[in-house]
């Protein structure tokens, strides 16, 4: 499974989101490759990914992609990430 964490610059928020998503996936026992990407890279990477994790502002900017886009409000709330990833994977 391929997951892309998207932010505007690819060095800050997406990296934090990737780290927390990996923690959650490990706990759920899901084998997934999580990539952090900036908006430019993400438009390409999102074509190949099954899930995109990002914030509300950037989800709008990303536009339509084949991947399921999950909007995370609090990047440090592992419960929120767990709940939304679990729902998406069902």
């Amino acid at each position, binding site marked *: 499974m391929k997951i892309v964490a998207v932010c505007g610059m690819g*060095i*800050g*928020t997406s990296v*934090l*989101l990737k780290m927390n998503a990996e923690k959650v996936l490990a706990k759920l026992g899901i084998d997934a490759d999580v990539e952090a990407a900036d908006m430019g890279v993400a438009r390409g990477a999102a074509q190949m990914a099954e899930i995109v994790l990002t914030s509300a*502002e950037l989800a709008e900017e990303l536009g339509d992609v084949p991947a399921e886009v999950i909007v995370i*409000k609090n990047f*440090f709330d592992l419960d929120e990430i767990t709940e939304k990833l679990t729902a998406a994977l069902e």
Partner: protein
Amino acid sequence: MTFNLAEALSSIVTQADAADWRAAIRLAGDGLVAGGAATEAYTDEMIAAVEQHGPYIVIAPGIALAHSRPSPAVLTGGLSWVSLARPVEFGNAANDPVSLVIGLAAVDHDAHLQVMRALAGVLSNSSAMERLHAATTPDDVRVVLGELATAAA
């Protein structure tokens, strides 16, 4: 996580006054400049990033991670810490108002990962964050961050 985030901070400012989100980011930029992490041009780039992409840098309730991309304005890279006396609105519906701005400058996409891991550990620790929000001096912030690094070691 044995890494002490305090050691990665170019500067720590507490109880700062900012009139709006631009001023708050500017304070975080000043901290990066003071520590030699980046030039003043990087501060403008951090503000431009929000103008371009919106207030998505408010990544958790009350916390903004001000940053732009690696550029010639980044010197050594680093982090700055600015806690605000009065929270300001960034325009982020989910997580406003912001009372802590962390400035981040990175020389490339990989060099700062250890710092980011430490930062993620701190920001996701709610009891530590309560103490950090309550910290009124830079030394208070350093003490809490130091304890976290020791506790995790």
